[in-house]
C-alpha cells in the first residue's frame, strides 16, 4: 500500500517539477486552456489505460487495443447515419466481442496473451481496412461529433468520459470482490484457484471489460476526428502500456493501481505537450519519452528495493 502511494506521489511531484520547467520556458504552457489541451490529448489513451491496467494486473497484456479502436471507430461511423446511439452501441459491441475472443483464447485455451492479442492486432486492423474499403468514412451527422467535440461547463466531453472511466475503474479494482480477485489472479494464480477463485472466469471478464473500454475509446476518437479512420489508433498500445508502466504497475501482475496509471498518463501528457510548446524536435521528443519510461521504472524498482 505504502509503496504504491509512494509511486503516485513521486509521479505527481515529478509532474509538478516538469510543469514548472515548461512554464518557465514556454509562456503558453501555464494556462487553463493548455491544461485542457493536455487533458484532451490524453483522453483516449487514458480510457484505454484503465482497461490495460486491469489486464496487466492479471499478468497479461493487450497489444490489440490500437487496431480495435480503429475497427470500432469505422463500424460506428458506418452506422452513424442511423443514430448516434446505435453507433455507440455498435462500437461497444465490437470492443466487447474482440475482448471476449481474446479472453476466451487466453483464459480457456491457454494461448499466451502476447500471441493472442498480437494476432488480434493484425486481424482487427485488416478488418477495419476491409470494412471501410481503405478510406475514411466521413460526412457524419453533427450529433455523432458531440461525444468527441462538445464540452460541458468548459470541459471537453472526452475528458469527462475519461474521468468517469478512471473513477469507475478505481472503484471496481479497489472496492469490489471482483477487483480483489483480479489482484489475486495476477499475484498468484495457483493460490487464487485453490482459494476458490475462478481464475479463468476472472481473466476472461477482464479482457471482455477491457474490450468494452476499447470500444468506448474507438467511438470517442472517431467522433473527435469526425470520421471512421481505418489507420487511426496506430501504436496506441505502446502509449497505453507506457502510461500503465510509468504509473508503477508491474508487468508480472498483481501490483498496480488506477491512481498510478492516471498519474503516468498525466506525466507523459504534460511531457509531450511541454516539449511541443518548447519547440523541441519531435524526433528528440521520442527519445525523451523512451528515457522517461525506463527512468520511471528504474526509480520505482530502486524505491521498492530499499523498502
Amino acid at each position, binding site marked *: 500500500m505504502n509503496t504504491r502511494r509512494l509511486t503516485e506521489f513521486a509521479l505527481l511531484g515529478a509532474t509538478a517539477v516538469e510543469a514548472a520547467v515548461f512554464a518557465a520556458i514556454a509562456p503558453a504552457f501555464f494556462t487553463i486552456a493548455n491544461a485542457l489541451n493536455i487533458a484532451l490529448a490524453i483522453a483516449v489513451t487514458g480510457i484505454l489505460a484503465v482497461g490495460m491496467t486491469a489486464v496487466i494486473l492479471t499478468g497479461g497484456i493487450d497489444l490489440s487495443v490500437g487496431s480495435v479502436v480503429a475497427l470500432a471507430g469505422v463500424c460506428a461511423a458506418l452506422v452513424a447515419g442511423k443514430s448516434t446511439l446505435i453507433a455507440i452501441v455498435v462500437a461497444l459491441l465490437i470492443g466487447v466481442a474482440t475482448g471476449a475472443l481474446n479472453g476466451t483464447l487466453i483464459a480457456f485455451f491457454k494461448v499466451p496473451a502476447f500471441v493472442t492479442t498480437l494476432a488480434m492486432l493484425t486481424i482487427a486492423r485488416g478488418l477495419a481496412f476491409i470494412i471501410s474499403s481503405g478510406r475514411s468514412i466521413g460526412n457524419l451527422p453533427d450529433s455523432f461529433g458531440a461525444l468527441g467535440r462538445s464540452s460541458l461547463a468548459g470541459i471537453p466531453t472526452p475528458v469527462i468520459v475519461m474521468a468517469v472511466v478512471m473513477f469507475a475503474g478505481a472503484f471496481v479494482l479497489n*472496492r*469490489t470482490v471482483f477487483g*480483489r480477485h483480479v489482484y489475486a489472479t495476477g499475484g*498468484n494464480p495457483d493460490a487464487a484457484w485453490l*482459494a*476458490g477463485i475462478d481464475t479463468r472466469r476472472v481473466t476472461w471478464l477482464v479482457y471482455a471489460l477491457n474490450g468494452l473500454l476499447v470500444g468506448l475509446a474507438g467511438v470517442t476518437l472517431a467522433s473527435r476526428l469526425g470520421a471512421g479512420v481505418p489507420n487511426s489508433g496506430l501504436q496506441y498500445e505502446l502509449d497505453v502500456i507506457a502510461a500503465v508502466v510509468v504509473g508503477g504497475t508491474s508487468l508480472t501482475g498483481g501490483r498496480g493501481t488506477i491512481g498510478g496509471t492516471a498519474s503516468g498518463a498525466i506525466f507523459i501528457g504534460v511531457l509531450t505537450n511541454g516539449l511541443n510548446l518548447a519547440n523541441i524536435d519531435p524526433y528528440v521528443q521520442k527519445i525523451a519519452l523512451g528515457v522517461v519510461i525506463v527512468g520511471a521504472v528504474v526509480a520505482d524498482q530502486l524505491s521498492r528495493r530499499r523498502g
Partner: protein
Amino acid sequence: MQLDARSITKRYPGVVALDGVDLTLAGGEVHAIAGENGAGKSTLMGVLSGSVRPDAGTLTIDGVAAGFASPRDARERGVRMIHQELSLVPELTVAENIFLGVEPARSGVVDRAGQRIRTEEVLARLRQTHLDPDARVASLPLAARQMTEIARAVAQRASLLIMDEPTAILSRAEIDALFAVIDELRAAGTAIAYITHRLDEIERVADRVTVLRDGRVIESRARDAFPRDDIVRAMVGRELASGYPAAKSAPGNVVLRLSNVSAGPVHDVSLTLRSGEIVGVVGLAGSGRTELAHAMYGHARLVSGTMSLDEKPFQPRRPRDAIAAGIGLLPEDRKGQGLILSAAVRVNASLASLGGIVVDRERERAAVSTWRDALGIRTPSIEQPVRLLSGGNQQKVVLARWMLTHSRILLFDEPTRGIDVGAKAEIYALMRELTAKGAAILMISSDLGEALEMSDRIVVMRNQTVTHQLSSAEATQERVARLILGEAA
C-alpha cells in the same frame, strides 16, 4: 578452513534481525544452527554467504578479514549455500549444472568428455554413482536434484557448505543418503552449517549446536553436552510440554465418504472422515497423499468411484465447489499455492470468504483482526505484506482463511513443515480445538511422530492408493514405518 563471525549486527526497518552474533564454523565439523522462525537464522546465513550485508561486525576466514560483497564473492572464497529452493537449471544435464559457470574448456569450447569424467569423480566421492551425469535435471526427483546441487558445491571446491533445511523435501531413505554424504564431507574436512528445526536431525548429524533467538546467540555447545530438552528450552525461552495436546476427541457422524475413488494418479481409495476426528495420512513422498486431498477438494478430476458429503452425493468440480461445501485446504507448498506473497495479511486471510459485489472493508478488517488475535498471528499490522511474515505466521494466515469461511472439513497437507516449535504447538492446539467443536481434519504428514500423536486414525498410502488403515492403538511407530515402506508388519 575456519570462518569466524564476530559481533554481526543487521537491522531492518522495525526489527533487529541480528544483534551482535558470534559464530565459528570449523573444517570437519557439522554445526547445527537452531532457532524458531524469525530467530535470525536465515539472515545470519545470508551474511555468511554474501547475500546480506551486515550493518556491523566482522567476518574472517583463517584469520584474514573477509567482508563478502556478493554471493559470487563468497563462492570464490569457498563458501557455498545450498538453498531450500534449489538453484539448478532444469533443462541442463547433471554434469552441465555441476560445472555451470566453471565449464572445463579448451579455447572457449566446452570439453564435454572432461566434464563428464570429472562429474563421475565427484559423484563417486559422494557415493552417488547411480546418478547419470547426462540426465536432464528436470527429469530427476527432488532428492537427486539436491544431490546434484551438493555435488556442484563439492566440484567447485567449497570448503564451507551452508545447508538450509535440506531434509524438508526428502523422504526417509533420501535423508539417510544425505546424512551419509554429510559424513563424507565432514571426513574430508569441509565445514558445514546446518540449519534445521528438527531435533532428531541435530542429534544425528551435529557436532556442535548454536541456538539463536531474537537475533542473539542464546547458547552454543558441543552436541554431546547439549541435551534435547535444553535445546528446546533455549529455542523457545520457556519450558514446553511434549508439544502435543493430550485429549483426543470422540468421533461423530461420517461427514465425508470416499468409495472406490480414483482421481488423478490415485486409485481405488475407500475412506471415511468423521466429524470430531483427525485422520493422519502417511506415506512416502509421491505415494499419492497430496493427490488424495486434491480429489476431495475438487482439484483432481474424479475418474471413477463416488464421494458423499453428509451421506449425500458430492462431486466437487473445482476448489470453489469444495469450499462452498465447507472444505478448506492448507496446501503443502505454502508460498506457491497457499499465499499471494505480495498481498497484505488482510487480503490473504479474507480471500475465500468475500461475498457480494462490494467488499465491506470495515467488516473485513474486523473479522481478520479477530482471527489474527485468536490465532496469535505475529505481524505489526494486518496490512503487512504476507511475504514479510515468518513461516509459522504465514501458515496461520492460511488457517485464518478457513476459519473465516467456517470450514468444517479441513485438509492439512504438511501443516507444520518448516515451522518452529512454538508455532507447531499452537497449530496442534488449534487442531484439537477445531475437532472438539465438531470439525473433521485430514492431516497429511511426513513427521511420523506428529502423525501418530495427533491422529485418531492412521491411513497408510503406498503406490497411489491406501494400503492400510489403523486405529491409534494399533499404530505404533515401528509398525507404521514398516507399512509405509511396504514391508510386512
